[in-house]
């Protein structure tokens, strides 16, 4: 997946003819240019430290379960081996990726969209047992279409209502599932 680095809200410029790179080499180069920047050295370090911490925690907890010997292992042996691999590899990755590799993606302003999306999902999960799925689903559709998707007010409203109605028809009326609902 490649992304243009267009700022949110700015309408996509018409693809100019010069972008019509057609040989495989040109196309690959263009995709490379459009691809998001790799996450970089700081992200690599941060991620590896988290992994290292988890690996170390795994080592401690598995030792607590008892290791035994290879011939008669105790429950902690196998998780210990895995945690050891995680710990060692995270240190290797800290060193190998200290200049930042080609992997991962930098967070951009667009990453807020994913954060907002996650927030609405959490809100929906919290509200569903209380007031049923209809209103949270309607809100989720509307927020995702209007603000995260850039639809117009009218189309976002109309489509949200249609979608929730369709879900009601399928999950409640047709399949008779016990999803918490208001109506």
């Amino acid at each position: 997946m490649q992304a243009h680095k267009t700022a949110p809200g700015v309408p996509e410029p018409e693809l100019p003819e010069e972008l019509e790179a057609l040989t495989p080499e040109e196309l690959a180069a263009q995709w490379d240019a459009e691809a998001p920047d790799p996450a970089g050295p700081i992200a690599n370090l941060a991620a590896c430290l988290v992994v290292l911490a988890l690996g170390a925690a795994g080592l401690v907890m598995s030792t607590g379960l008892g290791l035994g010997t290879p011939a008669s292992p105790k429950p902690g042996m196998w998780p210990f081996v895995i945690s050891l691999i995680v710990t060692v590899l995270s240190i290797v990755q800290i060193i190998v990726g200290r200049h930042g590799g080609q992997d991962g993606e930098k967070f951009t302003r667009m990453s807020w969209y994913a954060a907002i999306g996650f927030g609405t999902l959490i809100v929906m999960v919290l509200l569903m047992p209380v007031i049923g799925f209809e209103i949270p689903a309607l809100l989720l559709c509307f927020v995702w279409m209007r603000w995260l998707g850039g639809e117009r007010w009218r189309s976002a409203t109309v489509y949200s209502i249609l979608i929730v109605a369709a879900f009601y028809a399928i999950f409640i009326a047709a399949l008779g599932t016990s999803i918490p609902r208001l109506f």
Partner: protein
Amino acid sequence: MEFFGPVLDGFTVVLDPTNLLYCLLGVVIGMLIGVLPGLGPAATIAILLPLTYGVEPVTAIIMLAGIFYGAQYGGTITSVLLRLPGEASSVVTVFDGYVMAKQGRAGTALGIAAIGSFIGGTVAIIGLTFLAPLVAGFALDFGPPEYTALALLGILLVATISGGSKIKAVIAAAFGLFLATVGRDIFTGAERFTFGNLSLADGIDFVPIAMGLFGVGEILYNLEERHRAASAPLAVSNVWPKRQDLKQASGAIGRGSVLGFFLGILPGGGATISSLASYAMEKKTAKDPSRFGKGAIEGVAGPETANNAAATSSFIPLLTLGIPANATMAIIFGALLIQGVTPGPQLISNDPQLFWGVVNSMYIGNILLLIMSIPLIGVFVRILRIRAAILAPITALITLLGAYTIRNSMFDVMLVVLFGMVGYLMKKFGFEPGPLVLAFVLGSLLESNLRRSLLVLEGDPFGFFTRPISATLLVLFVFVALLPIIRSGIEKRKTRLASAAGAKEKENA
């Protein structure tokens, strides 16, 4: 006749109206998600796992398989018409497919891709029919050491073949293995990492992990990418290829079928790699390689044939060894386990109806896809006009409500959303979720076989090397593990030699 009896019985399973309906449903969904850039087959199959709970195992797998190979057909359409690969396995199709479309030959490109896909798929099903029983028969003698080695090699190959950082992919796989240890230890009954939580005693459920990491993770990730508006697709006319086109493409289709079939069987192989390999092969064997990238029909026919053949043949390791060859197969493996079916060498003899039902459903599925890709192509092209902004909340709602219906539990839904965030962050930080899910489903198999082997080998890890099959597999394992180090060593030497040579030249000059 002894061999063909169960094979033919499989057709009666397929022709059952329910199974036919689910096959149709699967291939239509597959085709749709193939057409729509964004969700891939692995994400879609994960999201739709709840759908498989209420039906027979064979019906469920027929549908999930249909999604997988259907996506290979659909991915072509966006590659050719929009220059946006719908699936990773259709990336190379862009090179010649889009040029053909610009030349007014979009119909020919799509038509030849559909015919190639059909032939590749069918060849692979026939190959699967004959090869699978052989592999399963061979694997019947496998003991715990062989399974340990096989599972280790499978996980490592899937982790190292994926793009991006290989170390991070192996770390992700190790996390999958660790998550699989949560719950009661099958050997001693001791509880591991449950923190006294009763719902963790039976282990972590596969479905929330798969739905979260693949499904919601992918949805969140796409929210960020969505502003990439699709331009209007090029017009399509005259989908039936001319005889001359068919003649020109026939060699590519033949080579693509064979190449895709064999690459699909290998762990870590699959549709994407075979499409790349096929494109490279066509370019190499062509009389005039300069035609490639300028609308060579072989550049479309070969890769599209190969990716479909590989999608089909990647069922062989899953159904005969119980080792999934890629992330999508790992989810289908999980779906089978949920249904109480353990894929492995015994599957063909113990559950021939399921095995041959799924295999033979692929013939029907491929015929359905051929019909959808040639006469009905206009319908799918129109679907390209649906905006991603409207589809995203629909997929999110399907995931959330679907997750709820599995056990009527809001806790499961919350887990799915949280794993979704984990999946999104993993992607952003360069950890592929695929190896994690694959290692997770293989985790308990690997641990129990490792421990059994060590019992048999009396605790001597080198005992693995005294048995020919496990020794071969482990040597391969070590080779694959060390390959990046060897490679970077060679490259360093090369650059050193080159710079030394450069310095010499300067001195001489």
